[in-house]
């Protein structure tokens, strides 16, 4: 019951905080997005986990143009180039999300150095093939909500 109440009071606030641009570690100033985000497909589905790193995204991200191109239950990511308005340092912000009909569920947020991922931004559509895996395995959820 207590957790339900906390979720109602603070859930949306925390989600909105998560979606904001990150703060620069040196200046503590909120970084600004430079232009529109790039959209990529990830090779994972629904609630699958992966070991996130700049290399992982560079090897596996497949560029797409619109959200409508995301296959059902497939995870995708938006990548922004962000810049600190004070010191000028640049980073790459990755939002890993799952698109469910018209809703989006933000799964994870990552921040990397600009140089680590700049090559990814110039990847053309068709460079990496988008394939359905030959074999997929999935499981149902079971959740118990207890009253505190």
């Amino acid at each position: 019951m207590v957790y339900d109440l906390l979720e109602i009071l603070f859930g949306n606030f925390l989600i909105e905080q998560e979606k904001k641009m990150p703060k620069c570690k040196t200046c503590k100033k909120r970084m600004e997005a430079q232009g529109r985000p790039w959209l990529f497909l990830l090779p994972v589905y629904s609630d699958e986990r992966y070991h996130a790193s700049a290399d992982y995204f560079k090897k596996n991200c497949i560029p797409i143009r619109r959200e409508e191109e995301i296959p059902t239950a497939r995870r995708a990511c938006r990548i922004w180039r962000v810049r600190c308005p004070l010191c000028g340092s640049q980073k790459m912000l990755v939002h890993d999300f799952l698109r469910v009909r018209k809703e989006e569920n933000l799964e994870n947020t990552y921040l990397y150095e600009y140089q680590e991922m700049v090559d990814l931004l110039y990847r053309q559509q068709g460079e990496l093939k988008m394939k359905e895996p030959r074999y997929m395995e999935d499981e149902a959820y079971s959740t118990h909500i207890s009253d505190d």
Partner: protein
Amino acid sequence: MMKKMNLIYMLICYGIPIALMVVLLIVSLNLNVQWELPLMLDFVLLIATPIFVPELLKKRMEKRAAAMEQEFPNINYKFTAHNCVVYLDTEGGHMGMVWKHNPFRLQMIDPAKITDIRTNDGQMLRGTEVVSCQFLLDGKKVKIYTLRVSGGQLAMKHPRVLEAISKADKLSEAVQAVVQAQKERQNRLLYRSRN
């Protein structure tokens, strides 16, 4: 015809703990009791049976399903739900299920008899307790749960609910692909037999 439950199996799984409870109750009532152990064991069984027996049934279902997997022609998609394991061959148009209450057979489904495939998000007011992919098989409803919540509801925008809906959507698409593949296979056979 789909057989979801094996009565003898269910009688054994639930019957043994219930019989044990009855025996312990009789023993504790008949002994001149300073010996409370049978009654305590009875109480423990009463609490433990509804918790552990379904879990054991599920584990047995998964184990049996894994042993029977080679009977299935070509697995593209395997989904483990609370009540069944589903195997789908979206290229060849085959579908098979192993049920929790009847885990002794991999039951093949004729995709030609599947209609009305959809995702049921179970929305009641602002939340849900169950999310499932459901379809009609020979006019009878079959539900494959992707989420079950006990003790309350989760909000429709809760991450678990959204993930469960996406799994149900994926499953619905896969079942639709199986039905489509089977139709194409039938059409090819028909074309060959005419020529």
